[in-house]
């Protein structure tokens, strides 16, 4: 297991490395005009601009730039922002945004796991009865209606009827976070409920459940001691990944409520060609995603004894 873990860890690092390299090269392929604001374009003549680019090292051959980037990467240093907040280090920009996204993401995740799994369990227990139908309508609604429409419904309900702030504000983070969190949770509750129900229904028709009944176990204890745990295993694999990805913030929700989080930062940085910030964000997203999958696999291995993820050339 230790061997496997180390191997997977190295593979994950390699993957992140490849991703950031590709993104770096792609960014360098953009025309250099984009590095200046319209104002600067007008103000400076070609020579000044050339000098500025030269000074920033942006006219060096790509391998040289890449090498410099790697050196920074080793120290996890992505340099300074050029456009978003000129001269501020990428890390401090990202860190500020990250805390906002993370706070919303973590709360939404906790709510949706709790509510979603409980809803799924209720649905599975009440299969084909009222509760199940209510849950199904909800899941189908959330999955089939475009997110912006359901967000608008949340907004309309929250802002009009409950008088909650409709835009996020840093001065008032408590109440103004409620609606973004509700929107984030809205979709993931449906997701967790759907899969919990599905896996529980699957498990409860298995033969070993019949044997548990035969040996005189009440359906209550069967639910708790056999079905729930077994149904949770396939679900658990995705929890670390989705947890880490919610930390990165949701593009749509953050745009919708003007949350100054990671999602908005990333789109802003791309729109304004702030390459260093883009690279920082990509690195963060890639790492979170890959670590999430990795943790999911490890969790699976702990929960399910049948899964022997072999190290050193063995296959399972």
């Amino acid at each position, binding site marked *: 297991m230790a061997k496997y873990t180390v191997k997977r860890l190295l593979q994950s690092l390699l993957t992140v490395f490849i991703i950031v390299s590709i993104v770096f090269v792609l960014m360098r392929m953009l025309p250099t005009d984009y590095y200046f604001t319209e104002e600067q374009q007008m103000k400076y003549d070609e020579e000044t601009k050339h000098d500025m680019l030269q000074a920033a090292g942006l006219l060096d051959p790509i391998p040289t730039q890449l090498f410099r980037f790697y050196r920074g990467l080793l120290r996890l240093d992505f340099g300074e922002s050029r456009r978003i907040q000129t001269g501020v280090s990428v890390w401090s920009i990202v860190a500020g945004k990250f805390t906002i996204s993370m706070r919303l993401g973590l709360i939404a995740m906790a709510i949706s796991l709790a509510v979603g799994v409980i809803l799924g369990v209720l649905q599975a227990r009440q299969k084909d009865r009222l509760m199940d139908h209510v849950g199904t309508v909800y899941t189908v609604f959330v999955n089939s209606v475009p997110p912006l429409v359901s967000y608008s419904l949340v907004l309309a309900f929250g802002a009009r009827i409950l008088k909650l702030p409709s835009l996020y504000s840093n001065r008032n983070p408590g109440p103004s976070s409620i609606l973004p969190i509700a929107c984030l949770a809205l979709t993931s509750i449906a997701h967790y409920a759907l899969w919990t129900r599905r896996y529980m229904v699957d498990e409860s028709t*298995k*033969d*070993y459940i*019949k*044997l*548990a*009944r*035969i*040996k*005189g*176990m*009440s*359906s209550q204890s069967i639910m708790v*001691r*056999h079905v729930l*745990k*077994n149904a949770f*295993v396939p679900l658990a694999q995705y929890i670390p990944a989705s947890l880490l990805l919610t930390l990165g913030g949701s593009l749509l929700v953050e745009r919708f409520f003007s949350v100054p989080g990671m999602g908005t930062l990333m789109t802003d940085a791309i729109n304004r060609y702030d390459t260093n910030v883009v690279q920082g964000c990509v690195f963060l997203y890639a790492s979170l995603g890959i670590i999430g999958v990795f943790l999911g696999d490890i969790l699976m291995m702990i*929960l*399910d*004894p*049948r899964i022997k993820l072999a190290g050193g050339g063995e296959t399972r």
Partner: protein
Amino acid sequence: MAKEPILSAKDVEIQFSLRGKILKAIRRCSLDLYEGETLAIVGESGSGKSVFTKSFLGMLDANGSITGGTIMYEGTDISKYTAEKDWLTIRGKKISMVMQDPMTSLNPLKKIGKQIQESIELNQGIKGEAARKLAIEMLKKVGIPDAERRANQYPHEFSGGMRQRVVIAIAVACRPQILICDEPTTALDVTIQAQILDLIRALQRELNMTVIYITHDLGVVANVADRVAVMYAGQIVEYGMVNEIFYDAWHPYTWALLSSLPQLGVKGEDLPTIDGTPPNLFYEVKGDAFAPRNQQALAIDFEEEPPFFDVSETHKAKTWYLDPRAPKIEQPASIKKLREQMRK
């Protein structure tokens, strides 16, 4: 066998509702079970063998229910039980069951020792370490070597035969009075089958259990059973001591079953098969359910359902052939041949 039966099912009817239609899986089926005996129930797929016996421990699927008749066990009519609470007094403790497929019968995420322990804790009121000791003892009893270590392993670390032993250990952990074995060897390797049958027989003797085998393997029947009941289309059509069924059967369906035994085949000739299909139980069956497939069916077979006629005190068959008014019908050659083989 003038003893009182320990379980007596009388005129049991079981229905399933499937897509709004009613399927009569069991049609007025009666069965007496005597203490310590081994009864085999044989019949083709869909004849209701499993459904009938599952009703003894309330294990019918959710869309099925007992709609008629009585199942008397220890002075109570258990066919009237509807609450799970009632069935829990029976399941595992009094009547238990071994299912067909050991590969899926165990929880893949629980150590097998724990799975046996669960059964003991539930039914014997023993908890923790003491229950664990009993579980390990049970594992030894079903012939699993190195039981202490094996108890800490998961099902996937066991072979099919070993798993079936574990399933049996779970089923008998609480010393049930009746053990229903629903095709316990069908999913197993032929070489393992005999071992499992021996194991069940040994446990039966040791724990003084009554065993019902559900099978369509007549070889198994000949090996283990004291009595045989033949089921067709949701009814028992003939029952008797194992010799009486094998060598002096009277129901045309039993004849057909026995004639298709590979052991009776003549080299170079096709084995006899039973033409046609069993009746569709969504519809009312008129007369003898087997009549449409019986080339020697009597006119009355299509009109009226035959009652049971005595062949001997222990052997009864549900066929008009045995009615004194019926034309003289000879047992088919293959049945005579079987009888002769026995004489030798």
